[in-house]
């Protein structure tokens, strides 16, 4: 595994897409690992009492999965220097074996002179956007030293 070389990247390049399935057990596991025990991520009763359709996924779990599109492609997750998202729509995760499938993608939108590559990310659930203004910036360098 190595970091992707800057000269191989082009604006408009479409990164390999990723599909991820979230089930209740994934939410419980993320709650434990992250320390985010907000009840709306594990209790339908409480989620519905505050006007949600039912248990919803942690936005931060979706955010963690979306950046994989960039880190898998860049070859080094440590290349990420900036990452931001807006959560636009909750992802209900039913208490069944199917769970919820989210689809993630990314496109290179900018390459700066100092090697900062901007990637616009997309995340959808049942065809609807769940993230907006999602953008990651990675710092890449040339494979061969420039003169």
């Amino acid at each position, binding site marked *: *595994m*190595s*970091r992707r070389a800057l000269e191989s990247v082009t604006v408009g390049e479409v990164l390999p897409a990723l599909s*991820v399935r979230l089930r209740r057990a*994934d939410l419980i*596991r*993320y709650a*434990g*690992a*992250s*320390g*985010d025990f*907000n*009840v*709306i991520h594990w209790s339908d009763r*409480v989620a519905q009492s*505050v*006007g949600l359709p039912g248990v*919803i996924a*942690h*936005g*931060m*779990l979706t*955010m*963690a*999965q979306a*950046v*994989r599109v960039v*880190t*898998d492609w860049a*070859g*080094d*997750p*440590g290349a*990420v*220097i*900036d*990452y*931001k*998202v*807006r*959560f636009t729509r*909750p992802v209900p995760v039913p208490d069944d074996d199917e769970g919820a499938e989210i689809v993630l993608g990314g496109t290179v939108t900018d390459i700066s002179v100092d090697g900062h590559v901007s990637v616009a990310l997309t995340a959808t659930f049942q065809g609807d956007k769940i993230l907006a203004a999602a953008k*990651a910036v990675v710092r890449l360098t040339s494979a061969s030293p420039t003169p």
Partner: protein
Amino acid sequence: MAINPALVGRSYPASPPYRVSREKIREFAEAVGDPNPAYVDVVAARALGHADVIAPPTFPIVLSLGSSGQQVIEDPELGLDYTRVVHGDQHFAYARPLTAGDIVTATPQITAIRTVAGNDMLTWDTVLATVEGEYLCTATSMLVSRAESAS
């Protein structure tokens, strides 16, 4: 009840030192379903130039929404109704990835408070730095406490 806009600018004490461990990074990476070897394989991480395994990009949320964030969310003068909270925006700006062995503190400061159509919006920055004083990352979170009537 609207949250208190007078708290914009309020800063909170740095969290107690938190040791970033290989085990916690592995647990977090597995929980987000990311098999990247840089998170679990020291040899792979070092081949990329890192001192040890590195944490996934969203790992700083463990600190910024953890005990340091609870100081903000549960500030009695703020008046945030956490049962109605959903995450609005999240931003991370990194000097370098958190790395196993780092001993880190998290220092939060409220940067914006707005109420729009009954929805309370709270924004705060959490600065992560090593106990030696090396700046690592700023995590900016915006939480929305949704209006009761909107449901």
